[in-house]
């Protein structure tokens, strides 16, 4: 938002003839800052790829850097789009997202080298293609949606779309089961995780729904233990969402997505009503559901065992045991404070090192210092999102901003917490970093929506005295 507002808005020096009154003109200061940061980011990304090549191959192969330049062109296209249609948008979001995405591509490329994947086999190339699709979609979103309030009209359409997207993987032909979780659809050569896009639709739906219903959800209720609990009949929405997330755990066998959707709803209802009892209720419901699922469902139980008793040799060697988790931890330990250097570690030993375990790969090669820089980038991104919602003018926009930034925060917590053994491991993608097209598309659309929200907010003072 107000990027450098300490410098007073410079008024044009030429006075209007006759009146002696100057008209205030605001230069595109935010966009210039963004341009500077983007140039910095592009240089950093190219540098990362070159270091990977020096470390893993021993020479620099500039064709890959050229490929990255293609991406940079798209990002600058988005920058120009912002100059034209969203002048006052936040200047930090786009550079942070581009940097995370670029580091992700460099690390995926590094693992491709280790696994000797080239051409269309290579995950990095597919990641580049998906990134360009995602950035192009983000440009479309920012150009087409000129006012975020339009989204409020489609509240229930968004709800329906989210439901359909969630059900798609359950269809017999289209749906596909990978590593036990049935969250994929398969069309031609591409597979897609519709649940990732569904989280945006859900955020829109929750925001629209809660804006219209929050009075009844917040005003009435019984007071108990110092908290005002809602009436029985107002519990409908939260119970429906709870049932939905339990259904995801049972039928799609995907803990992470269930936790993400339910957490999103609980936070949005808390922000909309300002009542902590919803959080108490939500956390209680989910914990109860999780414990029951752990008793009944084998795969959930396995996750708990892998988490609590990871270093037990029996569990380490078991099929679907804690091998992956422990290898990731070994990788992190091998990285130490400053890491082995990009291209010089062995992150490819861990299964899925380029997608679910990309944080472990990063931690091994960049070390604690690099990992904390990545966390810092996420922190800045999410704090910008929350700040945009805080300064928002209308309730729908505020709720939507909170929802979108909180999904990212929760997703980071779930996946990084899982890899570092803070919570049981659940399959979710690390936003912007991990290999996976659906996640990239969804997160870049979130970038576009947050930029649109931040432009609608009058964030730049018209006059500073």
């Amino acid at each position: 938002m107000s990027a450098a507002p300490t410098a007073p808005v410079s008024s044009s020096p030429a006075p209007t003839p006759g009146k002696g009154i100057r008209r205030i003109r605001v230069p595109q200061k935010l966009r210039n800052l963004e341009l500077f940061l983007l140039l910095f980011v592009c240089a950093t990304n190219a540098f990362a790829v070159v270091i990977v090549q020096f470390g893993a191959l021993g020479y620099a192969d500039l064709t890959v850097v050229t490929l990255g330049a293609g991406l940079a062109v798209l990002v600058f296209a988005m920058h120009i789009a912002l100059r034209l249609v969203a002048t006052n948008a936040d200047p930090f979001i786009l550079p942070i997202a581009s940097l995370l995405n670029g580091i992700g591509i460099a690390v995926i490329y590094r693992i491709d080298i280790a696994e000797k994947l080239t051409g269309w086999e290579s995950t990095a190339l597919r990641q580049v293609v998906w990134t360009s699709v995602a950035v192009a979609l983000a440009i479309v979103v920012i150009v087409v949606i000129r006012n975020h309030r339009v989204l409020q009209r489609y509240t229930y359409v968004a709800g329906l779309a989210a439901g359909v997207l969630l059900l798609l993987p359950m269809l017999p032909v289209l749906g596909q089961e990978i590593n036990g979780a049935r969250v994929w659809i398969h069309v031609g050569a591409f597979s897609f995780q519709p649940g990732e896009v569904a989280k945006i639709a859900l955020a829109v739906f929750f925001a629209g729904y809660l804006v219209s219903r929050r009075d009844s959800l917040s005003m009435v209720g019984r007071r108990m233990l110092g908290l005002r609990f809602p009436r029985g009949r107002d519990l409908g929405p939260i119970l429906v969402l709870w049932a939905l997330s339990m259904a995801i755990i049972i039928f799609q066998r995907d803990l992470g997505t269930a936790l993400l959707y339910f957490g999103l709803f609980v936070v949005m209802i808390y922000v909309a009503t300002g009542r902590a009892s919803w959080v108490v209720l939500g956390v209680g419901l989910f914990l109860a559901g999780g414990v029951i699922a752990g008793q009944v469902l084998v795969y959930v139980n396995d996750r708990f065992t892998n988490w609590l008793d990871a270093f037990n040799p029996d569990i380490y060697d078991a099929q679907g045991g804690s091998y992956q988790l422990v290898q990731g931890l070994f990788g992190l330990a091998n990285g130490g404070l400053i890491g082995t250097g990009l291209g010089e570690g062995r992150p490819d030993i861990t299964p899925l090192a380029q997608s679910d375990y990309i944080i472990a790969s990063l931690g091994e090669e960049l070390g604690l210092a690099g990992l904390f820089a990545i966390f810092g980038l996420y922190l800045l991104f999410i704090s910008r999102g929350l700040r945009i919602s805080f300064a928002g003018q209308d309730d729908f926009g505020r709720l939507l901003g909170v929802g979108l930034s909180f999904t990212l925060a929760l997703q980071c917590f779930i996946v990084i917490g899982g890899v570092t053994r803070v919570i049981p491991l659940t399959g979710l993608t690390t936003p912007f970093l991990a290999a996976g097209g659906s996640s990239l598309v969804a997160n870049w659309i979130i970038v576009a929506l947050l930029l649109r929200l931040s432009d609608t907010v009058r964030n730049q003072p018209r006059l500073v005295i």
Partner: protein
Amino acid sequence: MSELTLLILQLAFLALLWVFIFIIVYAMRSDLFGQRVRKLRSDATPAAAGATGAAGPGSAAAGAAAAPGGAQRPTAAAAPSTPATPAPPAPKVPTFVPAPGTELSGPPRATTANAGRLVITSGPKNNSEIPLGTEPLTIGRSSDSSVVIRDDYTSTHHARLMVWGEEWVIQDLDSTNGTFLDGQRVTSPVHVPLNTPIRIGATSFELRR
């Protein structure tokens, strides 16, 4: 590639990442620490009040009634770090809420049709103007205000100019030092006539055609 070169490259890359983070944190420091306050010199306030008198027709009264602390206790202006001192005579000023139709003579009310700009008539940015739309304008020290006034006399969220059915209305947002329309302290939302000074701290402005 020697190991030393690789180590240096690695350290350089980590340094770049952290430099990026610190550039961002530095650029958004005003969000973290708030706006910097500009200290007014002790003699600046009477001068500004004098300028108000010269600028607008009815604002000699504004200068007198609006700076009660400055008029009665000259030390108050010299110690701007205590702006929270309540201005004693202010509550005695009768509330000025003209009922519709009671205005006999005087400038017409500012509407979205006849008021096109907001002109600063006194204060540091004297003779600046901004175009008026139909959207509300917030005034205060915080950076999310539409018009940011950074002096000791302005509250974080000081006042708001808004449109009530085509007509411009000023509302004081419980500011410490008050908002004065033509010398009268604004206690409830009041219609703003054209060419009438509104004073906030050391700054006065008018709505003009």
